[in-house]
């Protein structure tokens, strides 16, 4: 059996779940800076407060799977993305404590809402920088990262970062479209229209820029022309459907279409990067740890992941439907 391939699949699935789930949390957080009405902001936070912690855990799962099954890649990629990861962790931390602290205050709640919004935006941008850095490729010498920690500070990476932020805002607004009523729903519709257009244009620009600027990306297009074209066309079609679904009776449609957009994006990225674990230098088989470690993780994952997925889904089921007007306790 090809154990490293299964470990890589598990890591990619965890990462995909993280992007889809915490993506909308972070999007809601980024949108928190806009509404003036505190009641609207309270409802926005209420819509994600019972489930955000579980969503964020998928990031840890992806990171630790990399650590356990591909320690060499882990030891190269983390120093390579030292700056964006560190700042992302700070952003996620700020967002996390704002959940708790904003509930404790009534007069200065706006201050923690700003911290909440900024934390979410910073985390989203940093994740985008890392995606950009992965597309660029990583400088490696033996088993060590040999580039500079500032390698991710390029115009291309910045463009990808803003695209990711816009995408998360689409997901967040889609979530509010699903969960919100009254003014929250109106706000969601307005944000969706702007964010969806921005996201799609930025995504097209980034894809074009990647193909022009990086030979490796062009090679991937040459190797899988049909597949990558199909993904791009589907992406555009789904984006159009999303724009038409805004304000429709089906509350959830923009959200689910937004998730589809992100899934397509991740698949496209996978086609470009895989089978590399450290882009364009180390394949996943070269970076894999010994068989015994792979087995330990995979057996554990095989047994426990279905249970985790089960009760995570149950938590979503418990808090299904519209967010109550006066908090979950009512």
């Amino acid at each position, binding site marked *: 059996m090809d154990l490293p391939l299964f470990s890589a699949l598990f890591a990619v699935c965890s990462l995909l779940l993280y992007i889809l789930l915490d993506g909308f949390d972070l999007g809601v957080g980024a949108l928190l800076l806009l509404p003036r009405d505190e009641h609207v902001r309270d409802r926005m936070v209420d819509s994600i407060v019972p489930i955000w912690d579980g969503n964020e855990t998928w990031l*840890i799962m992806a990171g630790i799977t990399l*650590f*356990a099954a591909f320690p060499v890649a882990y030891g190269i990629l983390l*120093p390579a993305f030292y700056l964006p990861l560190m700042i992302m*962790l700070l952003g996620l*931390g700020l967002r996390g404590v704002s959940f708790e602290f904003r509930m404790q205050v009534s007069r200065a709640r706006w201050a923690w809402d700003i911290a909440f919004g900024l934390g979410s935006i910073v985390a989203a941008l940093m994740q985008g920088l890392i995606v950009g850095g992965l597309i660029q490729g990583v400088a490696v010498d033996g088993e060590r990262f040999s580039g500079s920690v500032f390698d991710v500070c390029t115009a291309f990476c910045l463009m990808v970062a803003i695209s990711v932020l816009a995408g998360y805002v689409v997901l967040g607004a889609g979530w509010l479209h699903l969960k919100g009523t009254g003014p929250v729903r109106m706000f969601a519709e307005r944000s969706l229209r702007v964010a969806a257009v921005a996201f799609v244009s930025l995504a097209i620009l980034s894809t074009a820029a990647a193909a022009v600027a990086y030979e490796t990306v062009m090679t991937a297009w040459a190797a899988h022309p049909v597949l990558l074209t199909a993904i791009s066309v589907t992406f555009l079609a789904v984006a159009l459907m999303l724009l038409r679904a805004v304000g429709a009776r089906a509350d959830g449609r923009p959200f689910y279409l937004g998730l589809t957009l992100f899934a397509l994006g991740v698949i496209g990225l996978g086609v470009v990067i895989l089978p590399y674990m450290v882009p364009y230098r180390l394949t996943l088989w070269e970076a894999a*740890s010994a068989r015994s470690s792979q087995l330990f993780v995979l057996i554990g994952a095989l047994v426990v992941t279905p249970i985790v997925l089960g*009760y995570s889904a149950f938590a979503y089921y418990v*808090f299904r439907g519209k967010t109550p007007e006066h908090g979950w306790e009512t």
Partner: protein
Amino acid sequence: MGFGVGVVTGIVLSFEFGLGFARFGQMAGPAIGPMIALEVLTSFFLEAGFLGIMLFGLNRVGPKLHFFATCMVALGTLLSATWILSANSWMQTPDGVAIDHGHVVVTDWLRVVVNPSWLIRLPHMLTAAYLTACFLVSGIGAWYLLRKEHLEFGKRTVSLGMGFATVLIAVQVFIGDILYGRMLQYQPSKMQAAEGFWETESESPAPYYWIIVPDQESQRNRFTLGTPYLGSIWLTHSLDGRVKGLKNTPRDRQPYMGLVFYGFRTMYGIAILMFSLVVASLWLRLRGRLFTARWFLRALVVMTPSGVLATLGGWYLAETGRQPWVIYGVLRTVDAVSPVPPNVLLSTLILFICVYTLFLTGFLAYTGRLIRRGPDEAPEYAEARGSLKPALMPAISNAASRAVQPKEA
């Protein structure tokens, strides 16, 4: 609130293995990684998945399922401690692996997970966590009693807190003693540094040092303050025994004595204070003055954060005492760091210190306000009766009473 702050600061650790210590991550990933992966799978998700239901779901799932969710959060926390202690204990006493081209290859998973120090360090840490909680709630309860408010709540917390502490401190002294012996066997340099002696054999009878000013450079103490004979009695169980000093360890393998010594003394000193207070509480309880002796209540208030400080001291002992190794006897800390420029490391460290100070300030300020506001707004608890049972099941009875009398919105 503690949970929230704890969770977000804990995420950083999962990445720090690679961010700050890339070489350590590459070398030890095959052994530590799978353990932490299992921790995430079995405990982080359990905590996070049920935390939402526990905090916000009472009206949606009913009291029974809500109690189940609460139990799952507790179980997740317990499992988390189990795995992370296993991983850290492996770094202290590595076992069950071979080294192949600078990478760890696990030969026996059972010996990696159940490594020589885990079975003692795990109960030591769990007991410490429970003791911390005991003194934290007792201190708050005592504060209410001193201020003559929330009397019922205050009495119940002080009584329960000190009751559990009585059992736990006895258990902790016992476990601590076993652990001391085990560490002396596996990491002699740590315990040599912890006692503050330099010479290979101390004078006889040996004193027990309380304050030292060590000079690592010239391998001696510039100043010492200790109790004569006590060192021999406690450490060698005789009146004139000699204690082994840090010079038994080659100089390039010595930890910094000051850090290790004061980490240990902080933990040990607080343990002695806790023990004395518990003895006093038993005496006062028998004489029926547990809730009225003001000096005792004042002492409890002072001791509110004692468990936190003792736990920190213990971890300083464990981690600084292992130096210069990051994996004891296998990988040195200097060889484990990431290829990140020092000034970048320093700036991010300063940034983290600033943000974490903000978190801590917020946490202390808001928790202090919650405590001042008192338990009246908090959920009701079971009536205090003779048996422990109702006190242990506040969640069920509280949920049931709420379900019968829905709050007016």
